[in-house]
């Protein structure tokens, strides 16, 4: 048990942080929603009603989609684009999908390589892109969930303000949908830019996300 925790501490730390944050968001969001309901002449709702409401789910989904988009683009962009001096980048000249030998696939696979890396054809193609496909799939599902729950949340607000509700098609081209979407995207892209650029010159001793403290600024793709 202790060994399991030690070997998976990073995942367990973020899983715990995620659950605590989501629960915290549900309580804070519930309190805020009830304050607004009462101020508008409505009635308070229970915590269970709130966490199953479109209002809560759209807030969750809009953040999820942007995080998964961030990682999807980071994974795909770093295949083809480099940043000299950044530990987040490959060395210049290695842009692209790289050779089978570099990627240890097909006849270059090691004895303990994943089976699908040893196979050729579709399975190797799928497995070779499985991280991007998973991130992309979760991004699209989260974005779809944002659009569906966003429509419901927006329409409840519209009716509360004595205005007509809109269809899903009208909502996905609305200012509300794109405001929610782009305000999340901009912060994710800024965070990635900061990570790529600041890690050229700044160090975090012991972190694999940083170059070793003594590594030169021009060293690329070196993780400490």
């Amino acid at each position, binding site marked *: 048990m202790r060994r399991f925790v030690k070997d998976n501490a990073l995942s367990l730390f973020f899983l715990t942080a995620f659950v605590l944050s989501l629960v915290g968001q549900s309580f804070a969001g519930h309190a805020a929603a009830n304050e607004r309901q009462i101020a508008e002449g409505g009635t308070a709702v229970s915590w269970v009603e709130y966490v199953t409401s*479109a209002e809560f789910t759209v807030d969750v989904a809009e953040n999820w989609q942007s995080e998964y988009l961030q990682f999807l683009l980071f994974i795909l962009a770093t295949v083809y684009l480099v940043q000299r001096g950044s530990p987040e980048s490959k060395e210049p000249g290695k842009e692209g999908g790289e050779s089978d030998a570099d990627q240890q696939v097909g006849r270059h696979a090691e004895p303990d390589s994943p089976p699908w890396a040893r196979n050729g054809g579709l399975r190797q193609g799928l497995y070779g892109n499985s991280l991007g496909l998973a991130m992309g799939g979760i991004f699209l599902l989260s974005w779809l969930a944002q659009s569906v729950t966003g429509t*419901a949340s927006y329409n*409840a607000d*519209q009716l509360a303000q004595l205005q*007509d509700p809109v269809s899903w098609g009208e909502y996905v081209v609305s200012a509300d949908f794109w405001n929610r979407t782009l305000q999340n995207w901009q912060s994710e892209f800024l965070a990635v830019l900061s990570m790529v650029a600041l890690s050229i010159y700044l160090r975090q001793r012991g972190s694999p996300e940083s170059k070793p403290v003594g590594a030169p600024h021009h060293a690329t793709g070196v993780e400490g």
Partner: protein
Amino acid sequence: MSMKIKSMLVAAAALTACLTGCASAEDAPAEDAARQFYAAVQGRDGERACALLAPEAAESLRTGSETCAAAVVGLDLPGGDILGVQVWGDEAQVRMTRDTVFLHRFPKGWLVRGAGCEPRGDLPYDCEVKT
């Protein structure tokens, strides 16, 4: 397709349908409330009509010595046949041939918070009765 995947797809479709409006099952009580409100108005039962109004809407009709019951029957609200109902969360809109009624779901049920409403393009409806 396995049963597990099939049942997951059905659940996802049901969730999507519910989140996009939770159609019919949720519509009926809101529609009934609008129908009962108009039945009371047309039967000139002001007390009954006011009991079906949201508290703030009923309050807004009380002016000087005039009671809500007297005011609501004096408004000559148009009503008509019900054309459609939309329920989103705790809010509902019932479209009628000559009126659009807005309702809110309270613990005791749906109550009218807007009636005698005229559309104004992108602006909120202009309602004779509103919260």
